[in-house]
């Protein structure tokens, strides 16, 4: 009962806090007065922009936004890559050397794309200079890049010019991510999360064994990891490790932190278009999808593993921490895959098949709150398609937010939705064709298929979680997932910006009696159906081969045996 109560409370707090942060994001990105900040941040931001050489004026075209994004992201990545390849001795007390090139490349691309998929064991390969200068740096700027894109797209949909990338990036950091991360870091700190540059400590245990305590500057790292939907752990065990997530309370706050910015971004969208009913319905839609997933996963984890009934009873504790228990670890799995954070507080690999099914479903849809900034953008793409389809069905001119939805919009929207399956299913097929050794599968049967498709889905969705038994620290995995990471990040961003910029140029229409309203419960339900059909059916075959088959394989003990008996009796 208690886990359900705490889960419900956490989600309720998200729902209650999203509108005020949504208002805040609206003020930041619509450049409204923020007296508390403006006095001293305005001159700093203006000074920095001037020094960079940017006048801060809105881009005229999608390309004008995309080009500085690409150039700066390439340079962010280059700096981080250099730090990982070299790893100087400074702030590197254990003296770790540079990473192998493919591992360095994958890690850089993974953090640059706001994914944070990790094929390395950080506490055994990264010194504090790399953790701060490469990992923490990329976590901040990739989250800021995502937010910038999200609000550029929102501006386009609301008929405004799409804005200036440098200006958005800077304000996303100075007014949103940095202050929020500092506050959250303080909370983590007083809750027990280490924050020190003192070297990891090797101790002799009570029994005389050796153990390394992987302390470090974790509190701030952890804050941007959760708030920025990054998910990359300071240590390999990620949020399962007590240094990253020491108590039940930090676990609940971390769950809230993953959801709050994407939820607030959807709320801010409503304020941009002057229709909060629209944004509230979209929020209700993604909340409903999250709740369904949460109920499925929490129930499955609490019910436990039927295979082990001979030895134990109760929930599925394999790969889980007692601080959080089975149900709240299930909730986390749903939230971390819905929001594209990818942090884990327990092994998803050891989760029940229905939990893995839910997680994969979230990775395929990409809109159950979705990535930082990009979640709302994908959601709007689905809404556009729903508008188009319902328009066709009822014979009305498809219109959204006072503009006609025509061929170019539908083409862009379709392309955006095609990118994901391409970067998930094709490499999955290639890897599976290469055999289990190439694939590095660690769990037999249908679960092995889940491991492979999960890794690519996580990469292409810029999530970062994984079924971590997978042997993925190989050149094959590093290089192929790097392609999915890049393709799943920058192609959709370019297409989304083009879509939004094209949309804002269309003439604004007054609503007529023939206009199909999009801010109704009925239309939102249709959007939900479109989401599930377009977003998930593409992937249904692979879900059937992976988690669905695995779930069935756990049944035979009772259910399938009973069915067999009935059939035998009948014959």
């Amino acid at each position, binding site marked *: 009962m208690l886990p359900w109560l705490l889960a419900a409370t956490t989600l309720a707090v998200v729902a209650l806090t999203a509108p005020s942060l949504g208002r805040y994001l609206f003020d930041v990105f619509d450049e409204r007065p923020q007296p508390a900040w403006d006095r001293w941040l305005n001159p700093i931001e203006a000074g920095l922009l001037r020094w960079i050489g940017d006048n801060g004026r809105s881009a005229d075209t999608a390309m004008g936004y995309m080009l500085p994004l690409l150039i700066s992201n390439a340079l962010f990545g280059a700096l981080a890559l250099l730090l990982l390849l070299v790893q100087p001795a400074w702030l590197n007390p254990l003296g770790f050397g540079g990473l192998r090139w493919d591992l360095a490349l994958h890690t850089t691309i993974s953090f640059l794309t706001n994914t944070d998929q990790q094929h390395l064991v950080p506490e055994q390969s990264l010194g504090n200079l790399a953790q701060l200068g490469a990992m923490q740096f990329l976590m901040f700027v990739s989250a800021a890049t995502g937010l910038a894109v999200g609000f550029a797209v929102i501006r386009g949909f609301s008929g405004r010019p799409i804005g200036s990338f440098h200006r958005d990036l800077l304000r996303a950091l100075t007014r949103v991510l940095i202050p929020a991360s500092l506050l959250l870091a303080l909370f983590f700190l007083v809750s027990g999360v280490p924050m*020190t540059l003192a070297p990891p400590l090797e101790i002799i245990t009570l029994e005389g064994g050796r153990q390394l305590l992987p302390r470090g500057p974790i509190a701030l790292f952890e804050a941007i990891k959760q708030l920025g939907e990054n998910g990359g752990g300071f240590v390999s065990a990620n949020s399962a490790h007590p240094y990253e997530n020491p108590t039940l309370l930090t676990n609940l706050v971390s769950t809230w932190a993953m959801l709050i910015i994407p939820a607030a971004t959807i709320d801010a969208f409503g304020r941009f278009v002057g229709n909060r009913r629209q944004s509230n319905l979209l929020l209700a839609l993604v909340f409903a999808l999250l709740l369904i997933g949460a109920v499925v996963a929490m129930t499955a984890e609490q019910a436990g593993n039927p295979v082990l009934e001979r030895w134990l009873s109760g929930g599925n504790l394999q790969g889980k921490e007692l601080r959080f228990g089975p149900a709240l670890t299930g909730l986390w799995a749903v939230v971390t895959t819905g929001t594209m954070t990818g942090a884990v507080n327990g092994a998803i690999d050891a989760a029940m098949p229905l939990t893995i099914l839910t997680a994969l479903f979230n990775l395929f849809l990409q809109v159950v709150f979705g990535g930082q900034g990009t979640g709302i953008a994908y959601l709007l793409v689905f809404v556009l398609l729903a508008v188009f389809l319902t328009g066709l069905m009822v014979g009305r001119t498809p219109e959204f937010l006072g503009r006609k939805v025509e061929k170019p919009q539908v083409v862009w929207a379709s392309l955006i939705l095609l990118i994901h399956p391409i970067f998930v299913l094709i490499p999955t097929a290639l890897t599976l064709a290469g055999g289990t050794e190439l694939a590095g599968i660690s769990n037999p049967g249908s679960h092995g298929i889940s491991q492979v498709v999960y890794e690519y889905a996580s990469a292409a969705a810029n999530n970062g979680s994984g079924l971590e038994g997978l042997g993925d620290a190989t050149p094959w995995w590093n290089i192929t997932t790097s392609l999915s990471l890049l393709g799943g990040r920058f192609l959709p961003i370019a297409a989304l910006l083009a879509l939004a910029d094209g949309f804002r140029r269309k003439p604004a229409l007054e609503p007529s009696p023939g206009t199909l309203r999009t801010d109704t419960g009925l239309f939102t339900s249709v959007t939900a159906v479109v989401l599930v059909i377009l977003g998930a059916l593409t992937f249904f075959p692979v879900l059937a081969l992976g988690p669905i088959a695995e779930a069935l394989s756990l049944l035979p003990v009772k259910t399938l045996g009973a069915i067999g008996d009935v059939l035998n009796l009948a014959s």
Partner: protein
Amino acid sequence: MSIAAQLVRGLRLTLVLWLLTVVVITLPLLGLARLVAPDAASGSLLRQGNRVVGSRLVGEGFSSARYLQGRPAGAPNLAASNPELATRVAAAASRWRSAGVTDPAPDLLLDSGSGVDPHISLAAARQQLPRLARERGLPLKELERLLSQHQEGPVALQAIEPVVNVLGFNLALDRLSDGSAIRTPTP
């Protein structure tokens, strides 16, 4: 605008943001951490005498019969359907049976997520008290009292169920036995 000019902008931006997100915000927080929560900041270390023997937050391995033993670690990623999981659980259950625990608590059989889960359930701890009482020559009542002192749980939002901090308990156990060994020298 030329690509070269764009590159210069990008380089300057990278420099500014690197300093901002790596140096400018991290350093003050490191300083603040030493003021506000020096113990947590440096890893919540536990000492026996002058020697650091672990962290209050991080579990460590115990295999001796004289100590409360924690959760198993090593293979957290075994899938629910993997036959190896059942094999491991069966082996762990039979080890506990031969140590006198007939029906071991689930958390003694299933791997933690981090490999360093600092806790075990109250049930798992109680199952080990008779052994500890025997090994240490301590009355069971005394151990029960110790157990209640080292509980953490949902009331303070530390854990979803009442649990015992294994390292904390074992340190207290050592303190207790040292004292009792001096008090009651057996003839």
